[in-house]
């Protein structure tokens, strides 16, 4: 599955548009991570626990979006965007969406 955040796929032609596909996940941070991040906030620097959280959430949302795309019979997703929103205190949503298409390489 080709995934791009451009509207076209360089070197490919989009022959069919399957429609909007989306995936989301809502993650709560566990207490340990919060305490770790709180301590790290004293001296500054990367909050590795939160970076991991961001990565996990992004992978999950993207995977759900891709599952939808393959169900539709697409072989590529274009114009992929991520959006995050905090749903409640301590819980954040990661949302990925894009347009599922069928693309063929340019001859």
């Amino acid at each position: 599955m080709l995934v791009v955040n451009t509207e076209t796929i360089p070197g490919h032609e989009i022959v069919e548009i399957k429609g909007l596909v989306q995936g989301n996940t809502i993650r709560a941070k566990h207490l340990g991570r919060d305490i770790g991040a709180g301590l790290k906030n004293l001296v500054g620097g990367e909050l590795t626990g939160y970076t991991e959280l961001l990565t996990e959430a992004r992978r999950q949302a993207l995977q759900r979006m891709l599952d939808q795309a393959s169900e539709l019979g697409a072989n590529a997703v274009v114009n992929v965007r991520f959006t995050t929103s905090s749903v409640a205190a301590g819980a954040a949503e990661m949302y990925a969406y894009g347009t599922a298409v069928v693309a063929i390489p340019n001859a």
Partner: protein
Amino acid sequence: MTDFILPIIVVAMLVGFGSIGWLTEQAHLRRLKAAEASLAHIVVTNLKLPAAGMTVIPEPFVIGEVVIGSDYLKTALASLRGIIGGEVRSYQTLMERGRREALVRMMREADARGAKSVINVRIERAELGSAQLPAAEIIATGTAVH
């Protein structure tokens, strides 16, 4: 006498943690500079349209993400700024580090996959709900081509 103990402890913590934070920041900026120099062969643009002859690599979606926390001194300086107003330099460098680090991670991924260029780069701030702590939560995405 006991009245002075608490303020002294607070100031000592600010200076202590703050100087570790400052050193961490200087080291990070040096690492960023070196990483950016070693990845200079990857051409990064936020243009939507590819230049003539560009083709996507087999796995073109490249992402870089990072969460960088503030330190005590930065946070304290920023709240002082809130009183007198003006540019909050301590957070300016924090956000700059976040964006540059996310971009470097994205470029590293592109480089590892053999790309020559990354187009349509988007840099966004992620909202993780960790806003209680001042932090730069950045996610950079792009399409890798060769």
